[in-house]
């Protein structure tokens, strides 16, 4: 905790027929959560730069790691849709199953021209949502409805 992860962060796209999934890896659950947020931003931006203009606190209720990530991403999708905010950096303040998640997220503004290749994400799904140990580190996976 306390480390600020910056956009862009590495991720892989899943081979999902109907929708769009991403996989990230990290040495901690917090790293995975942060990279999933930044992967989400990369999809929305089409990979174009995102210049940070503000920071906000995002909170998720207690639950398992995957459920908390889904909650965070759903909130971020709402902010994108209503305020055209794109995550540019993430600091995990808290990420505990019993007490919930608290993230300090930096945001940039969506630009229709710059981010024209961005994907329209309809929803963050629970389908195949995972945050789990993998080969000495951690792996996270989220599928988005497109």
């Amino acid at each position, binding site marked *: 905790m306390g480390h600020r992860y910056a956009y862009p962060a590495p991720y892989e*796209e*899943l*081979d*999902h*027929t*109907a*929708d*769009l999934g991403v996989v990230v890896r990290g040495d901690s659950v917090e790293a995975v959560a942060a990279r999933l947020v930044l992967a989400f931003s990369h999809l*929305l931006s*089409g990979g174009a730069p995102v210049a940070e203009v503000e920071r906000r606190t995002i909170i998720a209720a207690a*639950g398992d790691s995957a*459920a908390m990530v*889904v*909650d965070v991403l*759903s909130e971020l999708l*709402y902010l994108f*849709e*209503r305020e*055209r905010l794109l995550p540019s950096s993430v600091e995990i303040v808290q990420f505990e199953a019993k007490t919930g998640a608290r993230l300090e997220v930096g945001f940039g503004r*969506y630009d*229709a021209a710059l*981010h*024209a*290749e*961005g*994907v*329209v994400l*309809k*929803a*963050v*799904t*629970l*389908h*195949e949502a995972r945050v789990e140990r993998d080969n000495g580190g951690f792996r996270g996976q989220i*599928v988005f*409805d*497109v």
Partner: protein
Amino acid sequence: MQLERIGDFVWELPRSGGMKVPGRVYLAPSQLEQVADGKALEQVRNVAYLPGIVGASLAMPDIHWGYGFPIGGVAAVDATDGAISPGGVGYDINCGCRLIATSLAAEDIRPRLRGAVERLYETVPTGVGASRAIEPLAPKELRRVLSEGAAWAIRRGFCAGDDDLLHCEEGGRLAGAEPEAVTPRAVERGSDQLGTLGSGNHFLELQRVDEIYDAAAAAAFGLEAGALAVMIHSGSRGLGHETCDATLRSLARDYVRYGADYAALPDRQLACAPISSEVGRRYLGAMQAAANYAWANRQVMTGLAVSALSTALGVGRSELRARLVYDVCHNIAKFEEHVVDGAPRRVLVHRKGATRAFAAGDPRVPAAYRGVGQPVLIPGDMGRYSFVLAGNALAMQATFGSSCHGAGRLLSRKAALERAGKRRIDRELRERGIEVMSRGLRTLAEEMSEAYKDVRDVVDVIEGAGLSRKVARLVPLGVIKG
């Protein structure tokens, strides 16, 4: 997973484990390889665990891996004792398709085709941030949309002809809608998106009626060979997504409290609640309201498209003679009466990427079509063709009056992008006489023809299985996408 062939185009997944009914999949033998990885079949199997499910867990030949339910999935549950599954409807509640016929000859508009597509693209917002096709609605007015459905839009002048509502599944409105059950956040998301297309596989397409297979049905539907038509594929936008999302995330945490049958569900995206429960009733009311929003959405786009075409082509509405052929939903759950084990039974039919396909004589089919059966609109892809079918009696017995909904994806979006590489799909289409406009090149690559099954193969299985029959084939002339 072992499928047993029980008909020329029907395969059964025998009951095992916690399955309450068998799975039944409609496929040609040549299509079996498309489900060989087992993921979609696993979902057919999982759906068979739903509390109250009757008959079989069904999948149409456009089957592919979804989440929870397979795309192309149909499941009916007892209306009293069964479970309602938001995943069995999907995030895009009442995503559906409508077809508008005109009196113009398609080839006559060729000189103005590019201008028409540009005008449509300017008029109907698409893609990221698509909004403000009409003035944003205050919450009170939006709740009227949720209650009234397509009729709300018609009263404000958004229409093709005078009888649009007669040619819309459910008359463009589900009466059980509860606007108050839709969350404030969903209302907020929907407030400025009415009349917008969305993105992904949503489209507005100018088409030519290319071939007639069933002259009597085509005549009843008002489809003439060579005529210009407009097909719109879209749904409930952010309001529907939020409605599904809010219910699913809440249900996913505690659906197991409804008992052992619920706790035994193999996939939490199948999280569901008893129809009779407070949560179930609330979701049902909200889902029906979101469905009404989708109908209003497609109705507003209809009005916008007809006006845009009229202007771009320099023809008045009386010369254009636009009329709604039909509007179908393909992500929905509805109470219907069907014969189950030889007796009439009220069931809740979930159609997740599947289309209602009621037969001739059914009172729920519009009077003008009752002699031939309900129109079933099957969009293909933007490079090949789409089909109009008519519902057959066998579907009423075998699939709760259901048919396929489209081509079904063959490639993942990732695989489609890799195959497209640096190709300009828009230029390839233009070289074939198809004008396309979209917000980004990525969408076109993801949605290229190669990413989809050939819808003709899907429709041939449906016809071969006797569920619906081909009436007409339509080919694309111009497309707008998000």
